[in-house]
């Protein structure tokens, strides 16, 4: 009865404008044998829409004092630092100078990378699941973090049967498929998928779900590819990332821990009382790629309600001003004519794709 009468409703606390001080946030990863990435941000107001990045100079240094910089030497918000020479088992830390202050992470020891033994795909009634079988290996810590990027071949929502010549406003014959119907699209995910196998026997994890998307998603249109990068995380790194992603992002369970700002592993060397947030972790990463065809596609009929029958005299207006393109001849109610739709529904490039085939594409 209690749960039946429970209610969740909007809440907007009154906050003082002075409550948000600008605090440096560091999101970094020292990748031994790869490219380390250090991203710098500032905390910002709740209503600010633009991501507040911080400009600084970042480096990775070893215990001998050797420093590794982003090759350009410029002040950046994101530094890509080549650290191919770094090896597992040694200690490294990240450093950065921002606004005249110098910050350092703790000394961190990257451990050897886990193995991605298999990437598999599964589906239920509504979703496709991308799963990974992993092996923590000799340096298994009980925690694995996975990031990934995806590339897939997709088609536009609407397949155009007509192409218009904007000079003559006529429809030349189209012998082949509309040229901008198929494209590729890529997306890189920085949000780390966390796998906690510390309570399981052995160092292997089978069937960890890394990604999930709808069966009607464009990822299923033709071919989909995912490249996973996995690294063994320290317990502290796992707990921090998990906390930030889960609890600090809000929960509604009666027993959700009270939120707060978790202590990271950075400090300000030049001003110990200055706050800094975030975490730099150190790892060796491994990557693996897999492809999926369209077997799980759930066909969704094109939404032809988007089409508008445009009279001939309005072709220029729809083409130039409204960004519409002709699709096909349609009959609707007692009207017939050429149906036009938004270009983003017809032209896959306008929809965010590219027709440049990726090098790795099979």
């Amino acid at each position, binding site marked *: 009865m209690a749960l039946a009468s429970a209610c969740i409703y909007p809440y907007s606390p009154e906050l003082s404008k002075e409550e948000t001080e600008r605090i440096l946030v560091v999101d970094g990863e020292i990748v031994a044998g790869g490219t380390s990435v250090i991203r710098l941000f500032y*905390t910002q107001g709740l209503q600010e829409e633009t991501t507040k990045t911080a400009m600084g100079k970042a480096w990775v240094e070893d215990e001998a004092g050797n420093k590794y910089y982003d090759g350009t030497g410029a002040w950046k918000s994101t530094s890509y630092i080549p650290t191919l020479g770094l090896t597992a088992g040694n200690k490294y830390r990240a450093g950065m100078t921002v606004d005249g202050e110098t910050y350092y992470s703790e000394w961190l020891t990257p451990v050897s990378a886990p193995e991605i033994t298999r990437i598999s795909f599964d589906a239920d009634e509504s979703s496709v699941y991308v799963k990974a079988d992993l092996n923590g290996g000799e340096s298994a810590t009980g925690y694995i973090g996975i990031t990934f990027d995806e590339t897939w071949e997709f088609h536009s929502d609407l397949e155009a049967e007509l192409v218009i010549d904007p000079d003559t406003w006529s429809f030349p014959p189209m012998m082949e498929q509309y040229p901008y119907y198929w494209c590729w699209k890529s997306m890189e995910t920085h949000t780390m998928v966390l796998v906690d196998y510390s309570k*399981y026997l052995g160092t292997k994890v089978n069937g960890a779900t890394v990604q999930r998307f709808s069966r009607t998603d464009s990822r299923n249109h033709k071919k989909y590819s995912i490249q996973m990068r996995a690294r063994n995380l320290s317990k502290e790194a796992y707990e921090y990332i998990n906390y930030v992603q889960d609890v600090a992002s809000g929960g509604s369970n009666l027993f959700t*821990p009270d*939120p707060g700002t978790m202590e990271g592993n950075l400090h300000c060397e030049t001003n110990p009382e200055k706050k800094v947030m975030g975490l730099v972790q150190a790892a060796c990463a491994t990557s693996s790629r897999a492809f999926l065809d369209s077997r799980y596609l759930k066909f969704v009929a094109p939404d032809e309600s988007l089409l508008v029958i445009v009279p001939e005299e309005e072709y220029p207006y729809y083409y130039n001003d409204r960004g519409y393109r002709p699709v096909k001849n349609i009959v609707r109610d007692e009207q017939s004519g050429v149906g036009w739709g938004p270009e983003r529904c017809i032209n896959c490039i306008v929809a965010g794709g590219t027709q440049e085939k990726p090098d790795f594409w099979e």
Partner: protein
Amino acid sequence: MFTLNRKALFASVFLLLEASILAFSQRPEELALFRGRTQNVYPFKYNGTFYLESKKFQKGSVYYNGKEYQDIYMNLDAYAMDLLAKPEEKSGATILFREQVAWFTLGGKHFINLKYYGIEKAEDAYYQIAKDGKSPLLILGKKVFRTSANGLSPQMQARMDGNYDATVVNYFDTEETFWATENGTLVKLSAKKWKKRMAASSNPEESPFKKEKTVWHPLENAKDDGFVQPQGRLSASIGLPDRYFSEITKEDTVTVEYVSNAMVATFRNKTYIIGEEGKAKGKTAILSGTVFEAESGMPLPGVIIHDDNSGTYARSDKRGRYSISLPLGENTLNFEAESKESLPLKINMLSAGTFEVVMTEKINLLKGSIVSASSMQQHRTTGMGMENVNIKTLAKIPSAFGEGDIIKAVLTLPGVKTVGEASGGFNVRGGSADQNLILFNDNTIYNPSHMFGVFSAFNPDLVDNVELYKSSIPAEYGGRISSVLSVKSKDGDPNRFKGSLGIGLLTSRAHVEVPIVKGKTTLVAGARTTYSDWLLGKLPEDSAYSGGSAGFTDANLSVTHRFNDRNTLQGFAYFATDKFSFSGDTTFNYTNLNASIVFRHKGDDGSGMKVSGGFDYYGNVVGAHSWSSASYDLTTTIRQAFLKAKRTRPFGSHTVSYGADFVGYSLTPGKMDPYGDISTVKASALADEHALEPALYASDNWTISDPFSVEAGVRLGGFIFLDDPKFYGGPEFRLSGKYSPVSNLSFKAGFNTMRQYIHLISNTSSVSPMDTWKLSDGNIAPTTGWQGAAGAYWTLLSIGLDLSVEGYYKQSRNALDYKPGATLIMNPNLADDLVPVEGKAYGVEVMLKRPAGKLTGWMSYSYSRSLLKEMQDRGTNTINNGDWYNAPYDKPHEFKLAGNYAFTHRYSASVNVDYSTGRPVTVPVGKYYYGGAYRLLYSERNTHRIPDYFRVDAAFNIDPGHYLKAIAHTTITLGVYNVTGRKNPYSVFFRTNGLGEVKGYMLSVFATQVPYINLNILF
């Protein structure tokens, strides 16, 4: 000097037994002034009510059941010789039990019940006092049915007389006879002789019906009379013991052998001689005994016994036993108890002895004020901050789903808070939930709630007494620094079978009290369970809880054996289990299991001893049963065994208590096991913890004089963590004092120091089923604290109100708080994620209470603060930069009202109002980009507050009716929880969407009105 005549007594007994039969099925409240037998409507009019003079009720005075009442509408049925009374002129009349009527005045005339005064040869009737004096002259006026001239019987006459109803009164004559009392016996006089005596002068001072004053003389308004019992010891008993008619010897120690539901004693008018001449040592002697309840024969705890002349005072303990030191010679000892008629008794102390007392239910006056025993008790004790929850009022406090709830009742008291509805724990005067010692008899309850706080763990039908110590915690209690909640279960009625059945929207419960050996051995058993799953099944599919389940069961069993009136042995067991899940694959299951054996001994010298031993278990299992390789059970348990011994002895104006405790702990802080055949979870466990906690204590309550008393105690406690040996310990002091310049005004002050060696590990505001307990060890020091408090207490006698103002200040050290992101489950280095904090709390509580009358209840306002501060410097990570921050249960302003209005004795309405400042929360004050998405930046801990809390509950109660011979009685309660439907927030949370927008949400547990109906059957 009048002696008690056995024949008069026998006749009285017969009348008492007759009344007993009538009273057998009655509930206690039906013995009130206006709850006697209702005026009967007879099938044959001739057997109706025929008043002595007219059918018009007049205002008069009556001395009834030991108390004088004035301005009562009354009339005398001179045919049945019944005195009828009614509260209002137009209301129905009830018949006063003749055995309880001493005298009354009506229409300017004075009537007396000679049987009440033990006058020989007196009829069971009311005699009018025509003339007072050395030998009072009396008239006995009766209505008698006139035999018809045709010799017909009244029945036949009624049939034949067509208009009989209107003229029936004409068929009765008034028959007057004239009497005088001489030497304790009644003498009939001729009319001539009577008139002659009437004409003669009289001396009221020599009336046999008074010693000092005439009890029945309205002008003098006296209250006592002067019969002296010349020998033996008698109980002021409502029933007469078996050996009553035997030769009473000086060696007799008369114990009350209960006569079921017999009427109140008529012997309050006697002087009771205790002990033997010449055997006293010194100038005082100890009087001890047990106070029983008339209606049930059960011992009465909390009865105040005081002697106004000497100023001595005592209070019956939880077993109804008392012991008081009285000067030798004559004393007037007053017995007062909540909802009981005050009982003033004359005691002539020759030497130490025992004296059993029975008290009856208080007549529920509709006029005048009643000063309850609890009101005056406040002025008699040094202790402060002690609240007693009356079980009878418990049912009248509206609560969610209408279930009488001990914890919810406690929450209506000032100084007791909770972080929100459906919250498992409670906070007392700024202390955290784990700082309350919750005892069920002598057993420790670690989780006092069911269904994540919706219900308490205690079945109210099985609870006899609830006490909450907010300060002035007695030295016998230790181990927690904030409060002690002591819940006592019923011992059961030793003489008759009874029980109850309760049916509500979500739970049902039943209990029985069975006299296995009448008067000796009693069994009490009860159980409660839910059927809430059907409601969860009705939730919409898109509800987050639609696939959930929730349920609990609890059961109590106790067996009490009375070897004799001095020695009892009780075995007690309690079991409770909860199981619920929000989704299909994760279940939460926790269990309380407690058992104990208690032996009590009452000594001749008024001393008492109690020895108890037992076992407590609390287990918590979180089951992730997804039938995959990740399925597991996570278990935490606490097991403890205890042994306690306590002795109390009076020494003149001192009452000394001393004793020892010993507790052994065995904790499993976390154990994870795979679940199912395909689970690959590896079994793991944190190291078990073992510890011992011994303690010795002693305290002395010293009544320096009537206004002044002090109580001083010390508890020497220790704690030994066995696994990695570490010892903690030290003395704890308990001091309190009282000054009462007048009897209804008291000033008190107290000071306590406390230690706590076991801690609840939690990073949620509310107690959650995943919280675990941790013993102090080498890395976690005990929590220590002290509290100072002072208060003033004033009983406004004229209007029957109690006003109290209490202020307190508390400090604590080494309480535990947590770091953000702390891992509290299965963490072998738990201390690394915890931070020791110091705490301070202070407040003022003002309470106005009306314990008796048509309108009863209490109203309180408190202003209080509870603050914490991290004790160590962790640089920029120190909580709130090392400044004081609000505790999660800090609610500065709080107003509470719990009221009950009795329209009649059957129908009453209850209301509960609860207002408090919103509790502190941590809210996002910004955001930042990390790990590919926006994350929330939170403020310093608890710097903001959710909206204030306000709730009104109302209920209408229908109590058992006037069915004299009903086997069972039904109580129905209809109510609404949260009448205003206010969406009181329980918690707030925030989420970001993919665009970085932050949305805030508030969770309200009871976001609408919750109507309920509850049915209770008592048998």
